[in-house]
């Protein structure tokens, strides 16, 4: 299980539970069948380096660097993301962190030329995500309303 601000890289199954405004991002290499998953909480690190997985702007370059070190070519990488919800309507009106997280992730992936092939973001609903790099990079989602599906 990957907690807030944590990430894993490999071919083993990975999971994040209870994503609200946080983002569960997966980056998968279809040639090498390995992948990375990170549980991002905020869009911007404002210069902080000590927990790179917590922020979109530090997490994405780090995952790409580590995947690169394992031999992944950026042209065979594909990203998927889930989360970015607004759990509380009232607070959401002034500061929608979920939406800002999702926007930042999209922009950063574009900047690094990584295609975002699927996403399940927004709304007012919690999501749990499992990622199986060894099984074709399968990403499954379970939503708080009992529905589930594949990304």
């Amino acid at each position: 299980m990957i907690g807030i601000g944590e990430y894993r890289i490999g071919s083993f199954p990975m999971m994040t539970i209870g994503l609200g405004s946080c983002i569960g991002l997966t980056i998968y290499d279809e040639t090498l069948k390995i992948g990375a998953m990170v549980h991002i909480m905020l869009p911007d690190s404002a210069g902080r380096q000590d927990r790179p997985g917590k922020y979109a702007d530090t997490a994405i370059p780090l995952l790409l660097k580590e995947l690169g070190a394992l031999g992944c070519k950026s042209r065979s990488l594909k990203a998927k993301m889930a989360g970015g919800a607004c759990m509380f309507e009232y607070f959401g009106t002034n500061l929608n962190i979920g939406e800002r997280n999702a926007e930042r992730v999209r922009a950063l992936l574009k900047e690094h030329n990584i295609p975002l092939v699927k996403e399940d973001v927004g709304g007012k609903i919690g999501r749990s995500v499992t990622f199986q790099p060894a099984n074709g990079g399968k990403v499954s989602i379970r939503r708080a309303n009992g529905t589930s599906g594949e990304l």
Partner: protein
Amino acid sequence: MKLSTVQSDAIQELGNIGAAHAATTLSQMLGSTVEMSVPAIKAIDIAELGSYMGEESAAMVAFELQGEIPHGGFVIFYISKESAIRLTNTMLGMTDMDRAMNEMDESALIEVGNIMVSAFLDATAELLGFIMLPSPPALSLDMAHAAMASLVAQMGDDVDEVLLFSTELVCEEHKIDSDIIMLPETATLKRIVELMENMMKGI
């Protein structure tokens, strides 16, 4: 912010007084006895939040702390989905447990949360002479971790560790189990600790 034993005892005492008032109001609403636990203070690393609150369905009524410190953190009325349905049923004299949450539950939860959190904050304000006003309530009926993490993400301090103090309120007769959780920003915590220390010096 790290707390010394004396400081955490002081906050525990404050939580005790606040929760006792909240318990009384809950007891009046249910017409039944409500027991409360000793308030617990937990410092939780955000990466570990998932082992404290998981995927379970829960209702959370959250209030932002306002007043002297404009964005002071959050106070949350937390109740599991089963307890929430039992709470509405008890208040409205219904018995059907096997049902989905509806608008009636939502209104009841917001109202109960409002009354309890107001009682909690009134009591602590009176004791400390420090005004903490609740914002209008916001309700989430969802995975507990998703709601809690979203509140932590909205805090002004970019923290890696959150300090939660929670008191469990239990009504055995109706099997209702709930919590009042306070998630203070560092500025609020500092102010509370300072006021509690001054108060104890005076005794």
